[in-house]
C-alpha cells in the first residue's frame, strides 16, 4: 500500500470528524446490550480521543502494525477503556463493540468520498477493516487479562480470608474449615494453625469440617497431614463436624481416621478438649 493511500484514512477522519463521532456514538449506544452507567459525555470523550489517536497514528505510521510506537497512544487509550469496563461489569462483547461499531460509519464516509474510484475504495475498506479488527482483538485481550487479574486477586483474598484460627479456651484452639481443601489451602491452614499453636501454647486443636462440602481421599489425606504436623508440635487434634454422609464416604473410601479423635459436633469436641486440659465449665447455681 502506498503512502498516499495510508493517509486517506487519516484524511477522511480529519474531514468528517464530527459526523463520524455522531454516527459512531449512535451505533454504540443502540447496539450496546447493557446500559451505559458512565455518563454519555464520558463515552463521547473516549470516542473523541480514540478518533484523534487513530487519525494521528494512521497519518504517521504504517497502518497495519499496531504494535509499533506510533500506535502507543491508541493502544494505551484502548487498554485504559478496557480496564475501566472490566470494573464497571461490561461484557466482552460490549467492550469489543466499542471498536467494531466504528466500522460502519467509517465505511459509509469512505463510500461517499471514494465513489468515483471503486478500486481504491475496496482496498481502503479492506485496510480499515483489518486495522479495526486488530484493535478490537487487542481490546478483548486487555479485557481478558484484566478479568484474569481480578479473578487471581479474589482467589488470593479467599485464601487469606477463609482460614481463621480462633482460641476457644485456654490451651484450646479451633479451626473452622469452610470450602474445599486443596493442597494450596492445606498449606496455608497448616501454617496458620502451627503458628497459632506456638503463639498461644495450645495443647489441643479442634478442626471443624462442618463447612467442607465433600471429603475425598485427597482431602482426608490433607486433614491427616495437618493432624500429624500439629502432633509433632506437641498438640493433639480433634476433628469435628463430620456429617453422616461424610462419615459414610470416609468409610467407603477406606480412609483410616482411627488414630484421630473424631466427634460429630464442635460442642462434643470442646467438652473433650476441656477435659483434656483439666478445665471445667458449670452452669451457675440459681440463687433465688
Amino acid at each position, binding site marked *: 500500500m502506498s503512502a498516499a493511500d495510508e493517509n486517506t484514512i487519516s484524511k477522511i477522519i480529519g474531514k468528517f470528524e464530527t459526523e463520524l463521532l455522531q454516527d459512531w456514538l449512535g451505533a454504540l449506544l443502540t447496539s450496546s446490550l447493557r446500559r451505559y452507567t458512565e455518563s454519555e459525555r464520558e463515552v463521547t470523550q473516549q470516542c473523541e480521543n480514540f478518533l484523534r489517536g487513530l487519525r494521528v497514528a494512521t497519518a504517521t505510521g504504517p497502518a497495519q502494525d499496531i504494535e509499533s510506537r506510533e500506535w502507543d497512544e491508541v493502544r494505551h487509550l484502548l487498554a485504559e477503556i478496557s480496564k475501566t469496563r472490566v470494573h464497571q461489569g461490561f461484557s466482552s462483547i460490549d467492550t469489543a463493540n466499542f471498536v467494531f461499531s466504528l466500522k460502519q460509519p467509517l465505511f459509509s464516509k469512505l463510500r461517499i468520498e471514494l465513489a468515483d474510484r471503486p478500486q481504491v475504495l475496496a482496498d481502503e475498506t479492506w485496510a480499515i477493516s483489518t486495522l479495526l479488527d486488530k484493535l478490537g482483538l487487542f481490546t478483548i485481550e486487555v479485557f481478558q487479562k484484566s478479568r484474569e487479574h481480578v479473578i487471581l486477586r479474589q482467589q488470593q483474598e479467599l485464601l487469606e480470608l477463609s482460614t481463621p484460627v480462633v482460641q476457644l479456651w485456654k490451651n484450646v484452639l479451633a479451626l473452622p474449615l469452610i470450602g474445599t481443601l486443596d493442597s494450596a489451602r492445606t*498449606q496455608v491452614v*497448616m*501454617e496458620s494453625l*502451627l*503458628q497459632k*499453636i*506456638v503463639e498461644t*501454647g495450645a*495443647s489441643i486443636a479442634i478442626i471443624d469440617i462442618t463447612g467442607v462440602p465433600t471429603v475425598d481421599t485427597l482431602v482426608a489425606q490433607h486433614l491427616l*497431614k495437618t493432624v*500429624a*504436623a*500439629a*502432633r*509433632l*508440635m*506437641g*498438640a493433639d487434634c480433634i476433628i469435628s463436624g463430620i456429617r453422616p454422609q461424610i462419615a459414610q464416604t470416609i468409610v467407603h473410601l477406606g480412609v483410616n481416621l482411627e488414630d484421630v479423635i473424631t466427634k460429630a459436633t464442635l460442642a462434643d469436641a470442646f467438652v473433650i478438649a476441656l477435659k483434656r486440659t483439666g478445665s471445667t465449665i458449670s452452669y451457675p447455681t440459681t440463687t433465688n
Partner: protein
Amino acid sequence: MDRIPILRIGRLLLVTIQVDMHDQLAMNLQDDLTSRIVKDGAKGVLIDISTLDIVDSFIGRMIGNTAAMARILDAQTVVVGMQPAVAITLVELGLRLDGVHTALNVERGMALFDQTLSL
C-alpha cells in the same frame, strides 16, 4: 569432633540441639545417648529441637530411630519445641514419628513425664 551435650536431671536426660545438625553429629549423638541411657539408667529422654530450623529426611529419621532405640532401653522419648516449618517438612517427607511423644516446650515436656509417663 563436635558433640552435643547430654544433661542429666534426675532420671531424665536432656538434650538441647543448638547447632546445625549434620549427619556425623547426629550419629555421634545417637551413640552417646544410647550409652548414657544405659550408664545412668535413665527412664526418659527430652530432646529439645527448638533452635533447629532445617531438617532433612536423614535427621528426621534419626530422631525417630533414636526414640525407638531409647524405647528398647526402657526410656521414653519426648521431642519438644519443634518449629512449625520443621513439622510441615517432616509431614511432607512422610515422617510422622509415630512412636515419639511430643510437647510444645521443655516445661510441657517435663509435665508430660510427670503426668502420663509416671516417672
